[in-house]
């Protein structure tokens, strides 16, 4: 119990629960047209394999005996007058996402708690509203104005805030920071049902059978006993101890913010750790130029820049720079950082340098001399490929990628140059392949000992080659699942002629395979 609680240190999380999100959204979407239906018992239904099921319902339907999750037919036996409308969970989720963005008016960071909740980090914000009570009042007012039912709670951890908003008293606030925070939370939440731990239904059943109904009771039977029973449960939703620790802030609980802003970031991993200032200046110059280009691509300028220097011995040195106005001028950035890097101790060397613009603002693009920039730095690969495809056509520029096939000409495909490479099995190193493959294998006349002797001499493009050395055959069977039954096998030979020219040839079929007469020979590849 006395373990340190770093994650609790002063954080305040606001949890919002919209208990009737689907119904409220339906009302807002329908407007006046829905009010007639809403005056009577109304349910939103989803179609399942066993018939329509109730997903959401209004107060009148609830009083009439319908419940969420029951089948519509069952509810109709209790209340024949029940009206229905289709539920739309996808739209509900989209609405919740918009709400999460809107909810940032109370804090800089918000996360969705699907299907019907929001978590907002309000750390160091409440004083702007005149305290946490006023903040909650403001939340209630704002949601009432939007005609949405809401329950809100503020607590030091997301778990506790969630528990309070769902099962606690309305507008609950659990305060306390520092060492007493854990006890405060434990005390405030001890009367809540175990369902407040966000557990799966089967775990709740187990706890109920054990006679553990309240959060406070979990602590009475000893941690070891619970640990033993749930030792195989690794997922937080299946293990009450993990949930309890998250709730008390003993273990951190990562949350996914709604809008993740990626910051412009450039880095250099260096081949040799650098220890001297001139080299560092040069790397900084390169990084600043990269950063300027990156920012230019986004139409932004940097207001705050962080440079991180990773030292070989594990130290990381970070220097920050704030700029008066958004800029993306590499020379300017270098000059400003130069003063900040004077006291850097390189130790055994710096192996990685990273520059990050943690705050960037839109900065209008200026018309530079486009051609001059390309002249000075060269074009990027994407620009180069764009220029090539515009002049030569889409098909002219391509990249060879492997394809799962035994037939050599099928084992390679051409795809657009910047598309990701498909996964492949990899080649066997003992399968020597030629450097170049002819578009279509060319027929050659070969002198060889039938039925399957080595080639001795062959004529290709009107010239006779004496075969000096041979390796083979490598037999490649036809792909029977794709080709017709009459397709013949191929015996591949790597050969070298008397002047050292190396080729890859094959014999199509074998004498007496019953798929044609004498086999033909083809030259398919030129080896390096």
């Amino acid at each position, binding site marked *: 119990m006395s373990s340190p609680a770093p994650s609790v240190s002063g954080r305040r999380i606001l949890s919002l629960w919209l208990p009737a999100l689907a119904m409220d959204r339906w009302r807002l979407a329908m407007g006046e047209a829905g009010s007639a239906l809403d005056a009577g018992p109304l349910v939103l239904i989803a179609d399942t394999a066993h018939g329509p099921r109730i997903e959401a319902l209004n107060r009148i339907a609830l009083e009439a005996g319908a419940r969420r999750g029951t089948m519509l037919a069952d509810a109709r036996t209790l209340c024949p007058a029940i009206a229905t409308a289709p539920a739309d969970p996808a739209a509900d989720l989209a609405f919740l996402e918009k709400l999460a963005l809107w909810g940032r008016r109370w804090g800089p960071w918000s996360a969705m708690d699907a299907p019907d909740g929001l978590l907002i980090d309000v750390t160091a914000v409440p004083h702007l509203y005149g305290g946490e009570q006023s903040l909650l009042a403001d939340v209630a007012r704002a949601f009432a104005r939007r005609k949405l039912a809401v329950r809100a709670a503020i607590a030091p951890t997301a778990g506790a805030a969630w528990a309070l908003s769902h099962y606690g008293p309305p507008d609950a606030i659990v305060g306390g920071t520092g060492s007493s925070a854990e006890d405060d939370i434990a005390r405030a939440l001890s009367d809540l049902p175990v369902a407040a731990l966000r557990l799966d239904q089967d775990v709740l059943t187990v706890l109920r059978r054990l006679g553990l109904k309240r959060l406070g009771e979990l602590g009475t039977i000893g941690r070891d006993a619970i640990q033993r029973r749930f030792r195989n449960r690794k997922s937080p939703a299946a293990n009450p101890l993990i949930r309890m620790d998250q709730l008390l802030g003993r273990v951190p609980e990562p949350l996914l913010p709604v809008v993740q802003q990626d910051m412009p970031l450039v880095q*250099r*991993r*260096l*081949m*040799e750790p650098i220890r001297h200032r001139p*080299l560092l200046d*040069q*790397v900084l110059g*390169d990084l600043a130029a990269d950063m300027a280009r990156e920012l230019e691509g986004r139409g932004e300028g940097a207001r705050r820049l962080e440079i991180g220097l990773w030292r070989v011995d594990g130290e990381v040195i970070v220097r920050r720079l704030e700029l008066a106005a958004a800029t993306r001028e590499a020379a300017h950035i270098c000059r400003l950082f130069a003063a900040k890097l004077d006291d850097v101790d390189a130790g055994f060397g710096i192996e990685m340098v990273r520059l990050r613009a943690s705050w960037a603002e839109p900065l209008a693009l200026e018309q530079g001399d486009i051609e001059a920039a390309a002249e000075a*730095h*060269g*074009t*990027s*690969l994407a*620009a*180069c*490929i764009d220029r*090539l495809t515009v*002049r*030569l056509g889409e*098909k*002219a*520029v*391509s*990249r*060879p*990628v*492997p394809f799962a096939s035994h037939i*050599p000409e099928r*084992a*390679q495909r*051409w795809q657009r140059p910047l598309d990701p*490479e498909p996964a492949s099995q990899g*080649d066997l190193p003992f*399968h*020597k*392949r*030629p*450097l*170049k*493959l*002819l*578009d279509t294998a060319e027929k050659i006349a070969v002198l060889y000992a039938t039925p399957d002797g080595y080639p001795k001499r062959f004529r*290709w*493009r009107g*010239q006779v080659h004496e075969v*000096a*050395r*041979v*390796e083979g055959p490598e037999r490649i069977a036809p792909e029977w699942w794709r080709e017709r039954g009459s397709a013949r096998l191929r015996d591949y030979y*790597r050969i*070298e002629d008397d*002047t*050292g*020219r*190396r080729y890859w040839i094959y014999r199509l079929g074998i004498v007496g395979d019953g798929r044609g007469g004498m086999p033909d020979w083809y030259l398919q*590849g*030129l*080896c*390096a």
Partner: protein
Amino acid sequence: MTQPDLSSLPEEALHAIGEDVAALCVRRSARWRPGLAAEEGKAFHNEVFASSREGAGAGAALALALDDWRTTPRGETDEAEDRRGILWVQTREAARLSGRPYRAGLPEDVRHRVIHVLADKPEDALFALEEGLRCRDLAFVIGEMSGNPKALDFTASRRLTLVSQKHGVPLFLVRLDAGRDLSSARMRWEVASAPSPAPRWNTQAPGDPAWHAELFRARGHRPGTWVLGDGGGMLVAHSSTRQDASNSVRPEPVEGLLFSSVSRMERRPTLRQAQGERG
């Protein structure tokens, strides 16, 4: 190139700076060898003449390019891993004659880098080569053109040299079945297949590729003949005594300021062969 571009100066200017001519002579007498890029920097514009009946041209060009690429010293401030691509430009005629690059047959660390351009006309191929040389994300550019197309005249060649030097992307242009025409390439090779060394386990099988390579024009090096081969991922060269240039057209004697030094060299074949034998 950090050294001054002496041979593009008129001859009077060369006489005027006598000591530089001496330095140039010393430099010219140095023989080419694999891995020279580590000391002298990359050769930016290379031509490899080969027959379209064999894969020697592309194979040797790729081997020379990889040799330069691997041995070029990397600056201390460069990114540790070179992830740049390789542009491989072919005219349709060259692709028909000698085939297209086959991924499974390429060296292991080249396979995923190759970007292939198939150009209908030589003009398009020249455009693609020049665009590739301008691109900072390419390690080198390989071109394959067949014959002596009209578009590839001395002006086009000079243009490629200048672009390549300016942006630091080397070009290896394979000339299939071509005569030795005018060109401003810094190194010009004539390549043919050579019998390969016998593999260790199956002496009847073809071994690692080997090529007869004749460096018949180079700025800064003596011409010479070698047998190039693959020595465990590195290019190795043995000196060769092979004299016959297989099926190439002898160069026309070209007079002019730009080529004075070259043509002087080529008009004395006996001297060249003697030098080739000595090393």
